[in-house]
């Protein structure tokens, strides 16, 4: 027997007639010549025989009923789980519908407040005017709101008034004559951008003033 061969495995397989005939013959010869192998084979055979003689047990008579009861219980548990699962999916469906309505409501609210706010504040499009670049005449004609010299102006007929000033205050505005106009513009050069607006009423240094710019001849005729 070579070193690679496990004698117990060979003997056990021999016992079960699992060896090819030539190998079985070789093992028989080895057993014949080796008393230790003979003893091992006898031990394995005895074990196999003893196991084969172990008596078989009949299952307890109540086992069938117990199995049937457990199957029934498992079925009930499963149907309960199914019902819970169905219920949960129903709740999920309801919550999905609720969520959909909530989203629609939220969108509707946003749109309502946006448009209502626009309407309430009369937020017509604002034209931004860079003081360094006078707006084109057509822009001024169409605009109702202008952002000039970092102030917001609204059109009131022929004049432009700074945002927040009530029309009643226009009459009380201190008019700035031509001599004062240059001095005011020298002190507040940012107001030069309002020259294009013609007549402008605004707050300056705590009082309401009325600037009237001389009209400029149109160019590019």
């Amino acid at each position, binding site marked *: 027997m070579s070193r690679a061969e*496990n004698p*117990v*495995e060979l*003997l*056990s*397989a021999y016992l*079960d007639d*699992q060896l090819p005939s030539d190998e079985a013959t070789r093992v028989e010869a080895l057993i014949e010549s080796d008393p230790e192998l003979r003893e091992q084979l006898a*031990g*394995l055979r*005895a*074990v*196999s025989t*003893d*196991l*084969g*003689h*172990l*008596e*078989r*047990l*009949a*299952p*307890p*008579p109540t*086992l*069938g*009923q*117990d*199995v*049937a009861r*457990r*199957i029934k219980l*498992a079925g009930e548990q499963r149907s309960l789980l199914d019902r819970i699962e169905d219920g949960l999916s129903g709740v999920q469906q309801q919550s999905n519908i609720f969520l959909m309505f909530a989203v629609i409501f939220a969108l509707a609210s946003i749109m309502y407040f946006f448009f209502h706010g626009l309407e309430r504040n009369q937020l017509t499009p604002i034209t931004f005017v860079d003081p360094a670049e006078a707006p084109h005449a057509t822009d001024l004609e169409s605009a109702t709101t202008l952002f000039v010299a970092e102030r917001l102006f609204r059109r009131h007929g022929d004049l432009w008034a700074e945002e927040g000033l009530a029309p009643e205050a226009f009459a009380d505005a201190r008019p700035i004559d031509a001599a004062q106009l240059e001095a005011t513009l020298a002190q507040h050069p940012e107001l030069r951008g309002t020259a294009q607006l013609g007549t402008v009423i605004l707050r300056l240094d705590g009082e309401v003033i009325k600037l009237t710019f001389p009209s400029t001849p149109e160019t590019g005729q």
Partner: protein
Amino acid sequence: MNAATAPESTTPGRDLAARHAYGDESAFEEVYQRFAGLVYNLCFRMAGRAEEAEDLTQEVFLRIHRHLARFDGRSSLKTWIYRVTLNHCRSKLSRKRYPTAPLAEEVEEGGVLLEATGRGPEERSLAHDAARRVAAGLLKVKPKYREAVVLRDIEGLAYDEIADVLGVRIGTVRSRIARGRDQLRLALTSRGGPS
């Protein structure tokens, strides 16, 4: 369901599975009657305690009931049931620490002996003691070798059937049976021998 009085049936496993799938309760009844003894004895040899074998058997039949409809007939129903039983025993008993050496007195309690030996009382008593020692020794054998030895020497399966049940090659079956028998032989020798 009473397995002890069950008539032997030869209905093919696939037919039983198909009937079970269609809700025919008598199909599972038939499976139980045919295989309750097999499952119970296999569980008993793997667990070593009657009470545990009973629990395991119930659980195995629950599994069978749940999965029988999916039995595809690639192996015999008997092979499939052996496989289900051993898989379940492995998963359950490994969690509880596989029994490897309970007291000899705890082995072979419960159940009803099926074979009447026809021997005298003294002879029967000696045989009973020897059987107890063998059964106790078997629990000292490593579980994966024990499975192979039980299937071969107690259940009488052929090597290729064992390979099918265990999902291993025949060479592995040969090796496991040999190691299992040798471990049992050594265990019995150290206790004074079975017979």
